[in-house]
């Protein structure tokens, strides 16, 4: 089950965070997302050691916590997408696919002329779209 998705801006400023649990755990999730930023930094600055394809947007599994796994994706414009999932096993292909859809949804959201670049994303349709993408991935991984 996907616990949370987040968008982090160029200056590591949080742009968007959506939790898919029923609990009131935003603070904890913010903390996990915040920790993942260091891992992203490390990956990007030492691409050789981490063994990912150089300059690919998808960064793979960033780090596992006790109960969650954190995946990352870094766009060309230095915007980070974070996925926190409670599933023990997520295939890379699924995660990649998820982030691709996520990215397209993000681009649509920031192309809104009333959106100010660098400010939090408040669009409800973005949040709705994300929910459907998340549900979609959820149905793949549970099958």
């Amino acid at each position: 089950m996907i616990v949370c998705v987040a968008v982090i801006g160029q200056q590591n400023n949080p742009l968007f965070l959506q939790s898919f649990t029923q609990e009131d755990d935003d603070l904890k999730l913010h903390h996990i997302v915040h920790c993942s930023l260091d891992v992203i930094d490390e990956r990007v600055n030492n691409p050789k050691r981490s063994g990912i394809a150089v300059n690919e947007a998808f960064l793979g599994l960033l780090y596992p916590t006790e109960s969650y796994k954190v995946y990352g994706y870094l766009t060309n414009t230095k915007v980070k997408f974070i996925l926190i999932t409670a599933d023990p096993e997520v295939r890379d292909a699924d995660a990649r696919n998820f982030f691709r859809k996520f990215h397209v949804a993000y681009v649509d959201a920031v192309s809104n002329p009333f959106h100010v670049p660098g400010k939090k994303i408040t669009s409800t349709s973005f949040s709705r779209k994300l929910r459907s993408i998340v549900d979609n991935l959820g149905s793949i991984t549970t099958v």
Partner: protein
Amino acid sequence: MGREVSESCIDALITEMVSSYCNRFYVNKPEVSARRIEAIGYQVGIQLSERYTVERPRFSEHLEAIKFICKEFWSELFKKQIDNLKTNHKGTFVLQDNRFQWLTHMSINASAETTDSSQQEPHSPNSTTLDANLLQATSMHLYFPCGIIRGALSNLGIPCAVSADASNLPACSFVIRIKA
């Protein structure tokens, strides 16, 4: 699958935007209208660069990003690539478009058309005011594309200043100076 936009509508919209800013909102304050138009371009550039870099690996150096602007970005906007790219390898790039879409409707003024000399000598006495007007109108139309380039590059992590030169219509060159 990208959505399509009518070319003539965009041309008309831009002409109208420039004329609104220059002749209605900020009459006699060309530098303010220029700033406003550039700012619109800047935001458009940010949004477009976000869209056109989806599914691309990240750029590792400035030249790659500039090449992206010259090729893919320009093709998406104008269905053609930049015709000529020059650089001094010290952070200055000159992008030349031999037939810049948004200037194709600019009339080269009557005096310049009848006597070729006035185009080469823009300061000959009788054509000075005409040429000055033409030059100003042209340069107003160039703030928008300059803003687009600046927005796209700064969103890709390259802060820069962009200026344009269209002394040779309808060719146009954009000068990008990357801030160290």
